[in-house]
């Protein structure tokens, strides 16, 4: 019950991690099935329709329901601590964001249980995704599930933006903010400006599917290229939404384990902002073959290439952070260092893809699959493993086992390169992506087999990580405030896991790497910015959970309205159910708005007692 009503960012972070991890396993299982189908030519392991469903759900699940929530998990767990805040700006909305996301994610995955699964690829190009060519309810699940999950993400994004702008501890100016916080800040901004475009695209597709609109129906004057544009205006920023937090994590981990200040902090900040900005102007590089013509193709080619420059700045800054440092190699740092060459390999294939005429050869081939798994798995997922291992003690009060951790790293790392390196060649040798079978005798067989073996090895790596989490949870709780000994930022000044209120006294920040600075000045603790006093906390609330359920019901109702017959007159049962769902949603909103939540206070004495307990 506590978990259903919590508005504490640390707990919400754990909820995000659990949900995201769950979906990662599902997405990973789908990936394994994809690879098993492709391990030999003309395989009949799964059917053609099932295969379409697998790739669609794999892509969608991994990006929206696994990667994003795990990113949000780390952001929730870390940002308030890094900026010296007691909470996020909108604790209630934070919980609402989570439950909304979860309700969307579950709605999407219920499609497997119902047997009507989305099958038009994660990009859902029209008209394949329209009712003419995708008759089952599969795509309705996609549209509804993503719409709902997307709202949750947008809420989360705004919450983090305001948190970072308004809740920083005294002295924590923007240019003293830890790199992870900066990256999250830019990520949230990208969410804010990218997700509404997706929302409109999905709404239009939903109107097409459920209410007979004609946005993407070429027979009625609709335009299929419009969908591509709308999807990618959202879609390209989305990939930077994914990678930026990883950039932030890598910056923190590498600097900590090199015992060195992040090299070129201000250029890192600048590069992050620039990537975010440029990220909006390159969307059509996914559409070189759509036929926009040479002028548009040139523009987007050049704009895309430009992104190499700020990204390069970041890569070299990481290398030079290690330069002259005193580097240790615990699992977190292994993942972080493994990230650098791997991500660069994915990045440079991105630049290759941006060469429009050559892209005519690469596009929609396994070369692209190789590219984006290098940046996503080799980049983001490595980053997430690094971040989770690094902050695990802060989140759960226990350090993960290094021994299992190293096994995790090596199996995952080797499995990863086995899986995806060969895919570059597969693509260039004429293997399109999203194919269910390939013919024998095309010289594609051996490499596909290697790729499948690699995927299984990655599966082992993932399972080892889970094993590690389980084994570790049996260890006694309560590690040091600063288990890595070289912590540089504010989160390492408070207990692991932190008390509800995070900071007994809001710290005074005197420079970049606030904690490190105090350490170097010979202090053991931060200078407080306020005397110990009562601490105001927000109340828990069940409403976010209820609202999530409301959305879930509404989504279901509208989706099945065409099937469920009528209630009275011309009112469909489905619509009635939908309205009930919305009523739950808006009812809860009204209740929330009418009932002032003044929160409660943790008395000074309790805080003091906590302090002594720790001392």
């Amino acid at each position, binding site marked *: 019950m506590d978990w259903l009503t919590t508005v504490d960012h640390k707990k919400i972070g754990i909820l995000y991690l659990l949900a995201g991890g769950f979906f990662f396993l599902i997405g990973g299982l789908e990936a394994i099935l994809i690879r098993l189908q492709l391990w030999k030519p003309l395989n009949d392991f799964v059917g053609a329709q099932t295969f379409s469903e697998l790739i669609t759900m794999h892509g969608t699940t991994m990006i929206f329901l696994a990667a994003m929530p795990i990113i949000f998990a780390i952001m929730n767990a870390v940002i308030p601590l890094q900026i010296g805040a007691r909470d996020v700006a*909108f604790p209630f909305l934070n919980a609402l964001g989570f439950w909304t996301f979860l309700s969307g994610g579950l709605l999407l995955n219920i499609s497997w249980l119902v047997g009507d699964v989305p099958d038009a690829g994660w990009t859902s190009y029209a008209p394949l995704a329209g009712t003419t060519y995708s008759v089952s309810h599969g795509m309705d699940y996609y549209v509804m599930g993503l719409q709902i999950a997307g709202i949750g993400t947008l809420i989360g994004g705004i919450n983090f933006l*305001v948190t970072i702008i308004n809740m920083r501890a005294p002295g924590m100016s923007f240019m003293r903010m830890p790199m992870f916080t900066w990256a999250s800040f830019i990520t949230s901004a990208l969410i*804010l400006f990218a*997700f509404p475009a997706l929302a409109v695209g999905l709404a239009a597709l939903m*109107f097409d599917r459920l209410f007979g609109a*004609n*946005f993407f129906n070429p027979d*009625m004057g609709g335009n299929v290229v*419009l969908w591509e544009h709308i999807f990618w*205006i959202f879609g390209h920023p989305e990939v930077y939404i994914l990678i930026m937090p990883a950039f932030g994590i890598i910056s923190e981990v590498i600097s900590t384990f090199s015992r060195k200040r992040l090299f070129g902090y201000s250029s890192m900040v600048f590069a992050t902002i620039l990537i975010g900005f440029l990220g909006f102007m390159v969307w059509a590089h996914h559409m070189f073959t759509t036929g926009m013509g040479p002028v548009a193709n040139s523009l987007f080619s050049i704009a895309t290439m430009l992104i190499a420059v700020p990204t390069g700045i970041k890569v070299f800054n990481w290398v030079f952070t290690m330069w002259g440092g005193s580097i240790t190699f615990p699992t977190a740092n292994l993942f972080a260092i493994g990230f650098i060459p791997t991500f660069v390999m994915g990045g440079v294939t991105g630049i290759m893809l941006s060469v429009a005429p050559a892209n005519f050869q690469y596009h929609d081939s396994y070369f692209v699959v190789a590219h984006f798994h290098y940046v996503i798995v080799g980049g983001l997922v490595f980053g997430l493993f690094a971040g989770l291992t690094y902050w695990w003690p802060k989140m759960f009060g226990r350090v993960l086992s290094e021994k299992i951790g190293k096994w995790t790293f090596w199996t995952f790392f080797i499995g990863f390169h086995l899986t995806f390196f060969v895919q570059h060649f597969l693509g260039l040798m004429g293997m399109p992506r999203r194919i269910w079978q390939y013919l024998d005798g095309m010289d594609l067989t051996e490499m596909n087999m290697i790729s499948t073996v690699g995927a299984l090895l990655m599966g082992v790596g993932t399972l080892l990580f889970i094993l590690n989490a389980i084994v570790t949870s049996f260890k006694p709780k309560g590690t040091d405030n600063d288990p890595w000994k070289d912590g540089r930022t504010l989160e390492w000044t408070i207990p692991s896991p932190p008390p509800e209120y995070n900071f007994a006294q809001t710290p005074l920040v005197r420079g970049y790497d606030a904690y490190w600075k105090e350490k170097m000045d010979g202090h053991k603790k931060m200078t407080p910015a306020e005397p110990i006093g009562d601490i105001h906390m927000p109340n828990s609330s069940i409403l976010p959970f209820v609202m999530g359920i409301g959305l879930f019901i509404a989504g279901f109702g509208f989706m099945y309205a065409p099937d469920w017959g009528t209630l009275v007159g011309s009112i469909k049962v489905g619509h009635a159910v939908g309205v009930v769902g919305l009523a739950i949603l808006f009812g809860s909103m009204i209740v929330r708005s009418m009932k002032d939540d003044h929160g409660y206070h943790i008395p000074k004495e309790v805080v003091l007692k906590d302090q002594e307990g720790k001392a």
Partner: protein
Amino acid sequence: MSAHTVDGQLPHEPEKATLEGRNKILGFWLFLGGETVLFATLFAAFLALRGQVLDGPTADQLFDLKLIALATGILLTSSLMSVFAVNALHKQNTKSLIGWLVATVALGVCFLGLEIYEFVHYVGMGHGFTTSAFSSSFYTLVGFHGAHVILGVVWISLIIYQLKKRGLNTTTAPKVYVASMYWHFIDVVWVFIFTVVYLMGKVG
């Protein structure tokens, strides 16, 4: 950080007096930034599809400038009413605040009435939601705006109720302020709708 204030003595800009209030206002501004993208995408879809009339009536045949001018005037005025409401808020005159808000809502309802009349009229002319890509994108764009108006009307009404019940304080003040921002935003979007959809539609 607490929401308590000594009774009767509100600070000069009560909406910004608490951190919660300031968070709310900032968050709302950012939300409006996102809404800008939302409407921009709707506009983009409309612009791309506005020529695809098929057998349905054209924009020129459909639109009646007088009706649109009337709707525009109403919405603009109601936006002014909400400006006065914020003025009253700053003067901490709860009574006139409520008065202005009621005026805002009333005009909003008039606007909605006109819009409903307009839509019914168009459907009668053979311009249904599913007639063509043009009609779908038209109803979606204008309808999204209309839905925002409905939401605004309900929301401001709820705030009026709260003000009546609890009066003006540091919790209700940010709500009024934010709702008025929302209302202005709706008006701003309408400026583009009447320009891009109706006037440009008339021009052809």
